[in-house]
């Protein structure tokens, strides 16, 4: 389960590139998160250059 802070996100797509399940999709100015596809690996939160993703196990 992740939470994306849109006030920090610069929609660079780094999280999308590392998501192994395509649970994150870059829309033009935000990231769309599909909780059903997410496997809770936390990779996106680690990757985010802006620290905009909070990962909760």
């Amino acid at each position, binding site marked *: 389960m992740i939470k994306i802070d849109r006030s920090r996100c*610069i*929609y*660079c*797509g*780094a999280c*999308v*590139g*590392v*998501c*192994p399940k*395509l649970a994150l*999709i*870059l*829309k*033009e100015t935000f990231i769309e998160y599909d909780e059903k596809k997410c496997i809770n690996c936390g*990779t996106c939160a*680690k*990757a*985010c*250059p*802006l*620290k905009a993703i909070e990962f909760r196990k």
Partner: protein
Amino acid sequence: MKADYDVIVVGAGPGGSFAAKAVAKGGASVLLIDRRKELGAPVRCGEGLGSHWLEELGLKVSPKAISAEISGSVLYSPNLKRAVKIQNPETKGYVIDRKVFDKDLAIDAGRSGAEVMVKTEVYDVVKKDGKPCGVKAYSMGEKLEATCRVLIAADGGESTVARMAGMNSTATLYDTDFAVEYEMVNVDCEDLIEIYFSKDAAPRGYVWVFPKGKDVANVGVGIGGLERGNAIDYLEKFIKNNKRFKDAQTVAIKGGLIPVGEPLKELVADGLMVVGTAAHQVDPIHGGGMALAMEAGGMAGEVAARCALEGKVDKQHLFEYEKIWRKKVEPKLMKRLRLRKVLEKLNDDDFNAIFENLNDDDLNKLIKGDYKPVVQKVLLKRPQLLKVLSALI
């Protein structure tokens, strides 16, 4: 929009636009699609481009796309006691404005005959017998579907199109650097790219200052994906601890991922080609991807047009692109990857010691891939590095 094309290119960055132009010039019909309403934005790049690429790629850069001209680079040791400067005709380059540059390339593709659609987001790849043969997209409130003989995925670091088509191009934390950059004003700079090596300031990556004018610069940091913290922590620290930035104002924030490991194991599949950062075609040392993307895009587009027109778009025929790329480009990248892997093993003391004895001539040799004389010189002063550095000879 028609419903059928010889080739569809997804992603109108430098690689995609180059590919689309090459397809059009090859006489095939091509659709170039991009998610964004404004090409080049948001910028996620240091924006540096070596001037030798202009000739190699047959590229014309309009004066408007050039923010600053660069004469060379300066590399700093971790303790900042040594700076090695390298300035020669081959180190000349530009810091460009991606917003202008990318659009110019798309304009070029459009002029060559490509159909261009912006604000069009591909949400799925259409397949027939498991092979990609088109895309589904949202565009201006409509759902569209277009078919093609060859699909070129040039959608950058997210690389979702190749994955939707069935190719695993997911970036791993191990093989990827994550970067954030502030464009800042009130930063004095020369016409030099500044690179700072330090495990403390940028573990497994580096800090950079790319001048965009006399007092404007892209100041950024990239760190290895498995390192502690996030890139922004390191950038904030670098700026805070450096008096040079005391009056600096941030006028833009940019960021992204940089695949700095090996290129994808496969660049083509039946009906599919992958180019640029989407294919992890990135320089493993400096992380630059624009020029490599344009180069690969041109190669892929030419082959795609020919194959589509002949109706032979299986993997074996599209492989021509991969064959050319692996022969012409990959060996250089793999050699630089070897250097990267060695640099990753060095600590700051090693770097400081190496910098003590390093001059611009050595740096030139490293850039050219002539590692042996530099390694020998370093080993005389630091024999304990024999095991690590032997990978370079």
